[in-house]
């Protein structure tokens, strides 16, 4: 009978895609109503708005036939946001008051930031669930200070040369400390791959600006010889457009490569992930979203948000080893939302 409990054949891996069914037009309606209520209540409703928005996005995210659920508590989020307003407001006021007090406040904010980031990670994961099982974050305060304060500050003294290493360690911390039920995520992207990504990115940027400088000088010289100031202005405009376009392509290639690198080396227990983001897809998304928002005076914002999430989901799949049925819940205590409030207001994105 013992043979039943031993894997006799390699477990099959099936690819399960994330399906995102939110639509821009529906989110637009949610967004407008949330916005009105938030402004009329002088921002108080914004905590409820956040919960509604997250519930909508989570409920519309499907994996292997089941959807996600958001459990955030508006009252807790409101308290976190009030604390964040006091902190950020105090910092801004202190800056106006005197530069010295401002600097002291800056140091204070920097000193508590790792704690707030840890709280925020704990809160957002603790309040996410899938199949009735909550996610969670185990990381302790000591590690948070190491990865969010000590290492980044130390990497400045290496003139940034250590930064790819710090980035790898940071993602490793985030992913290995995250859990689904009692099952932990793991992360095995090598430091070398981060160095390669940063190296190629900076190389492409430097090489590109060098090449553009040469081309610009030649074309500029030719057009000056040919005569005409308008030609020169045209050349400058063209160079500006081309360099923006080039920087966008290189930048999105870097972002897509990192996203793929990180998720292709992340595991949840025996299950893996596959990320297939491309720079063309990401660049197209960014450009159309930016143009859409600019030309509709902001009305496109909810559509842009949905498109960005949809693209990210489309590019991500889970490689399920066997089945997703055997994760066990970890019943833990509540987490307060102070870090979450700060993350909302300071706008730091912990998702990538």
């Amino acid at each position, binding site marked *: 009978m013992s043979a039943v409990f031993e894997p006799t054949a390699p477990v099959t891996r099936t690819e399960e895609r994330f399906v995102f069914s939110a639509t821009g037009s529906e989110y637009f309606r*949610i967004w407008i109503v949330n916005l009105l209520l938030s402004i009329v209540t002088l921002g108080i409703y*914004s905590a409820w708005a956040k919960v509604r928005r997250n519930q909508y996005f989570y*409920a519309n995210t499907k994996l292997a036939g089941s959807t996600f659920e958001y459990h955030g508590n508006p009252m807790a989020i409101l308290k976190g946001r009030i604390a964040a307003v006091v902190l950020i407001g105090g910092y801004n006021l202190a800056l106006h008051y005197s530069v010295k007090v401002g600097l002291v406040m800056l140091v204070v904010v920097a000193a508590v930031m790792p704690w707030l980031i840890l709280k925020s990670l704990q809160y957002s994961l603790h309040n996410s669930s899938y199949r009735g099982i909550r996610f969670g974050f185990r990381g302790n305060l000591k590690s948070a200070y190491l990865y969010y304060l000590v290492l980044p500050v130390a990497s400045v003294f290496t003139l940034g040369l250590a930064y790819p290493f710090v980035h790898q360690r940071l993602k490793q911390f985030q992913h290995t400390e995250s859990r689904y039920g009692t099952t932990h995520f793991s992360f095995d992207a090598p430091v070398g791959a981060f160095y390669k990504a940063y190296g190629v990115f900076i190389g492409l940027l430097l090489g590109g600006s060098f090449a553009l400088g040469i081309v610009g000088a030649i074309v500029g010289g030719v057009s000056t010889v040919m005569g005409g100031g308008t030609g020169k202005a045209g050349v400058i405009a063209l160079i500006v457009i081309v360099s923006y376009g080039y920087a966008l392509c290189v930048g999105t290639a870097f972002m897509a490569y990192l996203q793929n690198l990180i998720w292709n080396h992340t595991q949840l227990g025996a299950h893996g992930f596959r990320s297939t983001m491309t720079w063309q897809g990401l660049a197209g998304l960014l450009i159309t979203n930016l143009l859409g928002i600019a030309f509709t005076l902001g009305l496109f914002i909810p559509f842009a948000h949905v498109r960005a999430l949809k693209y990210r989901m489309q590019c991500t799949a889970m490689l399920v080893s066997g089945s997703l049925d055997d994760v066990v819940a970890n019943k833990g205590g509540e987490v307060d939302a102070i870090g979450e409030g700060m993350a909302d207001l300071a706008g730091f994105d912990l998702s990538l």
Partner: protein
Amino acid sequence: MDSGAAMGTVAGRYYDGVTSRVHRVVLRVEGGQACLEGDAERRAPLDDIRVSERTTHAPRRLTFADEAVFEPDDRHALEALLLATGHRDGSVVRMQQSWRAVLVASVVLVAVLVLGYLFALPAGANLVARMLPVAVERQLGQGMLDVLDRRVFAPSKLSASRRDELAQAFARLAPPEDGAPAYHLVFRRSRIGPNAFALPSGDIVMTDEMVNLLEDDKAVLATLAHELGHLHERHLTRRLIQGSVVAAAITVVAGDAGSLLAGLPTLALDMHYSREAEQEADDYAAAMLQQNGIGLAHLERVFATLEDIEKENGVMPAYLSSHPASAERLARLRQRPHPH
């Protein structure tokens, strides 16, 4: 509520909140209780079950008190069952799902934003600024003059007697309203052209270039009266408050659109408040001149001189960057009812 005998059943998946295992179950409502049968058996009062909000594509989900979850295979079957049990969506959800309500909300939103921007915010900022003790405002501007002295200004080349003459002439003028704040008049030579401004610290800075350009002491006094108006009306504090609220509102609206797009509207919206403040200071200066029997022609001269610079340079000098055009200010001044 009916006994529920006529209600249908809904097939779906059940997760017990302990493991991620899928349980195939059928949901029935019986006597105010939800009953699950199949791979798992469970009964729970309807009041203890949380129903997820209605959306167009996502299935409704039932969450039990212990975070066990039921997800239907067919969302419409569950919708029908919810309707039969008398479950109603909240008012916010009904609004979100109706285009008509959303249209009304949009109109109300725009109206609230415009009225708030034009009336409520300036009035509120004015109230707060006037309640704030002058000493607090003064603290805000500490050190600004030192920075400017290092970067932009050199010591004045005007003779001490000339500076005293102007300062005393201005000190003799009575302000148009009671409670004019204490100020400190300083003269500086400027590296950025003719300029005059008030700092929150209560310093009124007058540049040599401005004095020389105006060639008329009473016009200099008119300029100083304008700057005193800024101090008296608490413009700097008001702009600080208004600017913070506008920035906060834009963060709420733009939220996830990024700071790139959020910066521009903040800047544009501040210009309106800035021009309003200039007009108030112009009115203050005009009232102050009239109070002291000085002709408004001297204030007109300030605007006319500035207009000449505008025409000459084609670009606005620093003094004017956020001011209404001088021609506009001149026209406004001429519309002012003259006393007697």
